[in-house]
């Protein structure tokens, strides 16, 4: 593909009017992605941004790249076809908690399992935005919504745990309103060879306003989040003076210098599993950052290698060889 001149963020801004509610967390994510794309050294025409249906899934319209606003829940399946057909494309999937985890759950976990080199950004606002506010598979029990007038009864998924169970090779979490962290995580995802899953905590001002405030609000953020960085100790707090460590097969708070080192490459993801499922209201901080990053075979590479090997062995097929294969006889 072509070589790339430096881009500016604005090169990735399309001519379409943005149609999210004023104050929606999606704006910040859009800006972050546009900035990151500008700096990846990838030619603009080589980005393929693919989404399902939902507020979040309108994203491709606002990106001045190739974009495909598919149907509800199916973006990972479409993206799989795109990536296998043309591995040179830089394929990004934009999806919501309903799109990805409700109707699209199966495609998502299968894409994770197969480890295609695709990046999936899940905008988790714990609600169905576009259809006007029904509870989603990440909604906390008790929430009164349009479809749960007496309070939702469903137990939610933990998106990170689902991804670990499905053996996604890169699993991370970031926040709409933390642009620096967001961009770092996106860059790491891009650098990862294989499937990358990024949960982005996103605020829906209309139907689930402030749902993450107890974790992400400026006033509590430093004490309520611990940023997982591979090989680094799990420290947090404004002064990075607090730590988290594994002990007795559990997690506990500790001083910064006693914090366990985070190992994102641990193959079974057991520790990631332990970390991601803490209570959001307990004193142990909520982990963001990179839960997992391991290398394993990338499907589209394997496919094309097998094609190459077979072609090498059998020779390139032609119409001639196609028609005349097998046992034939002549009538004359």
């Amino acid at each position: 593909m072509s070589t790339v001149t430096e881009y500016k963020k604005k090169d990735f801004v399309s001519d379409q009017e943005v149609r999210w509610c004023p104050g929606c967390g999606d704006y910040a994510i859009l800006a972050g992605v546009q900035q990151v794309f500008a700096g990846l050294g990838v030619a603009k025409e080589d980005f393929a941004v693919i989404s399902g249906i939902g507020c979040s899934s309108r994203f491709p319209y606002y990106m001045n790249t190739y974009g495909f606003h598919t149907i509800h829940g199916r973006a990972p399946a479409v993206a799989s076809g795109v990536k296998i057909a043309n591995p040179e494309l830089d394929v990004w999937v934009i999806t919501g908690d309903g799109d990805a985890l409700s109707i699209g759950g199966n495609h998502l976990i299968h894409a994770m399992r197969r480890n295609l080199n695709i990046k999936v950004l899940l905008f988790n606002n714990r609600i169905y935005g576009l259809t006007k506010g029904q509870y989603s598979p990440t909604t906390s029990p008790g929430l009164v919504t349009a479809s749960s007038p007496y309070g939702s009864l469903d137990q939610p998924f933990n998106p990170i745990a689902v991804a670990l169970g499905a053996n996604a090779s890169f699993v991370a979490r970031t926040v709409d309103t933390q642009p620096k962290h967001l961009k770092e995580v996106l860059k790491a995802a891009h650098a990862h060879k294989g499937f990358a899953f990024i949960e982005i905590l996103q605020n829906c001002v209309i139907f689930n306003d402030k749902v993450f405030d107890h974790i992400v609000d400026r006033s509590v953020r430093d004490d309520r989040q611990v940023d997982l960085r591979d090989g680094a100790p799990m420290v947090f707090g404004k002064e990075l003076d607090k730590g988290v460590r594994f002990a007795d097969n559990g997690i506990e708070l500790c001083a910064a210098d006693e914090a366990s080192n985070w190992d994102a490459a641990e193959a079974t993801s057991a520790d990631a599993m332990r970390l991601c499922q803490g209570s959001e209201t307990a004193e142990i901080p909520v982990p963001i950052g990179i839960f997992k990053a391991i290398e394993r075979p990338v499907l589209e590479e394997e496919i094309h290698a097998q094609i190459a090997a077979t072609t090498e062995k059998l020779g390139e097929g032609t119409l001639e060889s196609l028609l005349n294969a097998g046992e034939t006889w002549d009538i004359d």
Partner: protein
Amino acid sequence: MTPTQEIPLQQVDDVVIRFAGDSGDGMQLTGNQFTNTSALMGNDIATFPDYPAEIRAPVGTVFGVSGFQVRFSSNDIHTPGDQPDVLVAMNPAALKVNLADLKEGGTLIVNTGNFGDRDLAKAHYDSNPLDNAEELADKYNYIAIDLNQATLDAVADCGLTNKQALRSKNLLALGMLYYAYSRPFDTTEKWLATKFSKKPEILDANLKALHAGAVIAENSEFFAIKYKVGSAPLAEGTYRNMGGNAALAMGLVAGTQLANLNLFYGSYPITPASDVLHALARYKNYGVTTFQAEDEIAAVCSAIGASWAGSLGVTGTSGPGLALKGEALGLSVMIEQPLIVVNVQRAGPSTGMPTKTEQSDLNQALYGRSGESPLPIVSCSSPGDCFEAAIEAVRIAVTYMTPVILLSDGYIGNGAEPFLIPDISSLPEIKNAFAEEGDTRKPFDRDPKTLARPWIKPGTPGLEHRVGGLEKAEGTGNVSYDAENHERMVLMREAKVAGIADSYKPLEVFGEESGDLVVLGWGSTYGAIRSAVERCHNKGMKVSQVHLRNIWPLPSDLKDVLSKFDKVVLPELNRGQLNRLIRAEYLIDTISLPKIQGKPYGGAELFAHFQKILNA
């Protein structure tokens, strides 16, 4: 060791043999060997494999019977035949299921070695049907032989266990028939040699059983006459034996080669379409990628993605799987990109009878999507014809930037016939119209003739744009909720599909251009209709045949063609789905001939219908 000829040799035109036994008895394999051998002798052939839903149903049960019918002829034939001339029944269940079909006076070969009390009980026989040997002998050339024992004897010195040895009994039966119908052994010998190259003792046993069959047939004088079937007056050229699903796969590959495209086949296994996936998975050196998706929705969506990325996306399935693809097909209609959906139909509704054939998904193909979402439908008429039909589907999809549904069914998908290898120069030209850097057309600008939009693939510098399932503005393709634009776009998509009819070849009428009756058919009824109409011609009846390659849009000359006949009759393996379409389009009082028994029409059956209609 070729048996010497002592008994009379008689020339016959046309023979139908049915092999029937347990799923484990190797009947499909036996039938295939007979087929290939006959094809290589220059006979015209047609086959009808009919196997149970169970992988290997418990031995001896009625539902576990596997059948393979092969017809070989010195004429040009169109169906695997109505009633078999020879029935090979390997056990009581096989006899029970198949005997009623055997022609009076036909040859009945029964393996008496499997008629013990337990075998009879498994087939729910109260008494041994072979006890009435006289009755059987009156009605048929009845050959009762313990194939088990004969096989054990034949392979006694191969060092096999009894169980292993008995596996060769199908070859012994095959040998008998090779003798009776003067077939050479070499094709089967070669095939066995390859298949068992690593198991010499098994190879040896199989060869011994094959030859023993011939010897037994000769010595026993089971056959009062030996038959010869001359080669058929097929067109000159090189032939291969071709199954329908294999031909379809080959056609798809040929189509993409012609269009200079890579083929991406996203599919989820389902009977009877899985063999298309299996066949394509072997074409890796033809630019073919196969992707076994997690379900039918992912399969079609991956194909849509692949087309967007610049390959030809194809997906294949059978009825219930097509239902699952409906929503994505709507998307494909909306974004106007090439896509082929193969539907190898089976008997429905729901899971229905997965291993039985039917043509009952035409309605679903026409209408199984939300909103106004017209798309072209192409259909296959015979196993070999699947090749050409698939190329036609590629031509339409690529030329018109549209999804296409390609209808086949279990009967032709699993059937086989000799296939005249076409001249490459006779295959259609197909032009993929990718937009290149610098192209100034907007994404939804249209070719004035085809109304197709340009195919702009990601990776092309400067042409970045967005597509999706929301209604789009003419030209730009941007999202639009405008009322008039919506109506224009709906009409545009409709007109584009309607315009495909302009690219059809004129309809062919088999028989006179006018007359008392025209038989309008589509799909796998082709052969049976052709046989029946030929019979009508032989009797001087004014009956003609029109068979549709393209079901939607209907050919523009169809109304005219039909109007020249007094009556229009439509035989279909459904409850009259094409019939309803024709009535709505042309307001003609057609006669529907629905059959919905999970099995094909026979030529004789149709002939009787036509006769009755003409006499009415």
